[in-house]
Structures are given as structure tokens and as C-alpha cells.
């Protein structure tokens, strides 16, 4: 693991701040019909309070698995996850998750989906709808409050689940490709919104993405993961001024970060493709039809 230290000084005392989230030597293996598969291999990271931490890596490298472990949804792994110093075992109340798959409740309207965590928390009806409406409008779904998920597009549904997790106002947000189903413009604008909310609420955010531009635009640091088994290839410090908006994309420093991460990622993606191809060939040769 190489840590590229960029000239810093932007966050005074950042290095000494107690990490809010620490992940130590996580190893997760799955039993599959073709043997044991190591999905996450010895991943360690620590995230400072209020930090925006990007995670990027080739498809199938174990990013979602890592998030499910941090979120307490998977067990049977080695290593430890700590929130504010305390070891977690199961879902932690200060962690909120946005899932990669479609996860809205089809039997609830948009507003009732977003109000869900507030209902669980026992907020009175009027208050929870007020708050839910605020988050619905934040993700740009004004006027769709009474619609049901089946009446929305994929990107709109993803924004509903995003608003639902935001409404719970967790201290730590784990977002697994929340923008994947969106077009580039909406993605950039929603990225701005997320940054704005994150800065306002001082939320610690971990974001998985395949989009390098998005990662650099949003993150304080980016962890690049290797192709299977998923290890930490590099953690890159993004030293761009805040507050950032999507306009930063056109700056020269931005371009340098993108190029650097792209070269890391290209190595891994190429390796992934080659391995997949050769596995297919090996599987195909001599195997009965």
C-alpha cells in the first residue's frame, strides 16, 4: 500500500483528529461452488470526522462487500470495524447506508419511503412529513411525493432511497454508487447537493463510485482498490480547495488527479479483464457441452 502524501495544510490538525471510523485488516471470504473466493483482502483504513472518503476499484473487487461489513450486515470476516473507538458488531445506529441495488419500498409512496426512518424513530406524524418533504425536495423530487416507486424512473428511485437515508441524518453515510443510474448532468448537480448537505451536517461520508471525475470532485481522499482479491492499492489525498462545486472539474489540478487515478485503475481493470478471459478459456476447454 502506498500513501501518496500531497502537500497539505488545508485541514489543520486533521492528522491528529480521532478517526470516527477505523477498519483494521478486514478479510472476507465466500464459499462458492468453485472454491473459496477472497472478496476483501486485508483492507485497513481510517476516516476522520467530516471527511469525504471515496472508494474506487474495478467491478467485483469487493467494494460492496466491504461496505456491508462496515454497515454490520455481513459477518464471518476477520478484522475489526470500530466507530469512534468502539468495536461494532451488527448495524450501528450512527451508520446510514445507501445501497447499490434498487431498495425503495414499492408499497410506500415517495414521501412515506423517505419518512420511514423517522417513523421508526417515533417522530410525530406532522414533524416527520415536514422533514421528509425537505429531503424529497433536496433530491429534486418535488411534486412526486404521492407517487409510488413503480411510477418513477430508475434514477428517481435511487434518489428516493438516497433521501430516505439522508432523512435519518446518520453521522456516517455509506453510499454505494448512488449516482450510477443518473445522467451526467443530474449526477454533477446531485453531487453538489450531497457535498452541500455533507458540509452542513458535518457528516462523514464514504462513497463507492466507478466514476473518477465524481470521486475527485467529491472526495478528500480516494482509496483505489485492486482487482480480486480486493486490496488497497493506493490512498490518494485530494488537495483541492473547498467549498467545491462541479465547476472544479475543468481546473488543471483536477485533471492531474484524474489522470493519476485513471492510470492506477487501468492497470487493475486490464488485469481483471485478462483474468476473466483466461478463466473463461480454461473453463471452456475440454468441458463437456
Amino acid at each position: 500500500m502506498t500513501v501518496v502524501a500531497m502537500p497539505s495544510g488545508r485541514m489543520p490538525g486533521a492528522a491528529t483528529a480521532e478517526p470516527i471510523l477505523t477498519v483494521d485488516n478486514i478479510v472476507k471470504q465466500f464459499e462458492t461452488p468453485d472454491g473459496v473466493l477472497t472478496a476483501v483482502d486485508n483492507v485497513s483504513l481510517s476516516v476522520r470526522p467530516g471527511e469525504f472518503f471515496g472508494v474506487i476499484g474495478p467491478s467485483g473487487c469487493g467494494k460492496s462487500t466491504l461496505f456491508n461489513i462496515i454497515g454490520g450486515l455481513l459477518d464471518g470476516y476477520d478484522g475489526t470495524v470500530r466507530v469512534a473507538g468502539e468495536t461494532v458488531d451488527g448495524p450501528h445506529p450512527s451508520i446510514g447506508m445507501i445501497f447499490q441495488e434498487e431498495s425503495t419500498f414499492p408499497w410506500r409512496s415517495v414521501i412515506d419511503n423517505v419518512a420511514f426512518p423517522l417513523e421508526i424513530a417515533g417522530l410525530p406524524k406532522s414533524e416527520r412529513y415536514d422533514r421528509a418533504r425537505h429531503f424529497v425536495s433536496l433530491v429534486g423530487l418535488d411534486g412526486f411525493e404521492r407517487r409510488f416507486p413503480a411510477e418513477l424512473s430508475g434514477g428517481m428511485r435511487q434518489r428516493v432511497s438516497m433521501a430516505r437515508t439522508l432523512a435519518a441524518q446518520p453521522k456516517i453515510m455509506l453510499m454505494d454508487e448512488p449516482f450510477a443510474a443518473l445522467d451526467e448532468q443530474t449526477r454533477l448537480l446531485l453531487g453538489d447537493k450531497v457535498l452541500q448537505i455533507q458540509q452542513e451536517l458535518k457528516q462523514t461520508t464514504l462513497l463507492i463510485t466507478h466514476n473518477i471525475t465524481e470521486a475527485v470532485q467529491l472526495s478528500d481522499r480516494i482509496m483505489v482498490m485492486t482487482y480480486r482479491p480486493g486490496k488497497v492499492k493506493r490512498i490518494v489525498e485530494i488537495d483541492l480547495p473547498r467549498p467545491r462545486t462541479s465547476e472544479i472539474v475543468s481546473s488543471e489540478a483536477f485533471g492531474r488527479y484524474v489522470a493519476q487515478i485513471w492510470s492506477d485503475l487501468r492497470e487493475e481493470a486490464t488485469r481483471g479483464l485478462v483474468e476473466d478471459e483466461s478463466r473463461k478459456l480454461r473453463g471452456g476447454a475440454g468441458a463437456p457441452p
Partner: protein
Amino acid sequence: MTRPVPFSQRRYFPAVLGLGSFAAFVIAVEFLVYADILNRFIIPPPSDVIGAFPRVIMEEHVLARFTQTALEALAASVLVTIFGVAGGVLLYQFTLLRRATETWVAAIAAAPLVLMYPLYLVIFGRNATTIVMMGFTAGLAPIILKTLEGLSGTRRVLINVGRSFNLTRSQQFWKILFPAALPTIFVGMRLGLIFALINIVGVEYLINFGGLGQLINELAERYDLAGTYAAICFVILVSIIVFALTERLERWLRPAG
């Protein structure tokens, strides 16, 4: 200015089409009987069946019988729904129980349970309880199986959403598993209620006790074919009512399909 909606896309079109096809079918049967292509001693002309309605209503007290069958069907439906859903939930919660009994339940669903009526006669006597219990027995298995299927089929990610929001076990069940399973549970209910109704009318017929089944038995014995078919129309009415009620219930429990 709005363009006129084509006739085939209007809201009432399916209903009109359905009724129209039914009317066309009735007219075709009428014609075939008069043309002596269908034997009128097996299939009475529909006009005779319609003509038999006043007689069946006035002389055979069909309304009282209809009420009796409808109440038996309602009682069996309530019982079968409560116990069927509860059974499915139990099998879902306890893996051991599920492994031990799932095949049995599936086998029971396929068995000709109506043949159990002599046993029920001995247990409950020749009365409405036997009939309701026969309906209950016949409808139970499909509801248990479909409830189990619906609960087990809940998408993993929805369960994870609940877990990440720290739901308690009972919240997890009532707020996620149950609503997610509802459409499948209702498929089971429709199947189970059909089985129950068939058995209720069938047992009424067999033990010559109770509502419409007994009436059909008597009319058939008297070789009053038109009257028999008219009485069968009332059985269909019971089934329509039961279905309309389940549909209402489903809309109420889960507003968006």
C-alpha cells in the same frame, strides 16, 4: 382540444368486452340447443335457465340458502386466512419446522380432501360446522405455502435496509417482510378461497345439508335442469362476492401493487 380516446382504451372497455363475450356465448348456446346440435336434456336452453330464476327464488327459498352458503364461505375464509397466514409465518420463522413439514403441506394441497367428509361427519355431526371445517381444511395448504413463498422471496436488500435502520424483529416483520409478501399471500388466498368454496358446496351436496349445494342436489334429483343451472349461478355469485372482498382487502393493505 383533446383528442377523443379510442373506444378500446376507455376504462370500462374490458368490462363491456367481458359481458359482451358472455352474452354472445349464451346466445350461441341457445342457438345450438334450438338447432338440436346440443342435447336439451343435458344442457337446457339459457332462456329456460333465466325463466327458472323466479321459481328458484320464490319456491326454493334460494336467498336463505344463498345466505347460508355465503356465511359458511365467509367463516371458512376468515379461518383459513388467519391460520394459513399464521402457519406460513411459523414455517418461515422456524427452519426446522419448515424442513420437517413443507413437503407434507405441499402433498396435502394436492390431495382430494373432499373425501375426508365422512370423518368430519363423525367428528362434528351433520351440521354447518362440518361444512365450514371442510372448507377450512381444503383452503389451508395453498395459503400456508404462498405465505411462506412470499416471505422467503423478500428481496435481500429490503431486509438489509431494515437492518441498517436498526429495526426490531417485529418492526422488521410488520414493516418489511409482511408488506413485501402481501401480493404473494393474496395469490394464495385466492387459491385457498376457491378450494374452500368448492368444498363447501360439494359437501353440502354430498351430505344433503345446508345451502346452495343441497338445493342443487334436490333440483338435480328432480331433473329440474334449468333450476339446477339457475342455482349454480348463485354459487358463482358467492364466489364473486368473496373475490371482491379480498380485492378490497388487498387494496386497503397495500395501496400500490
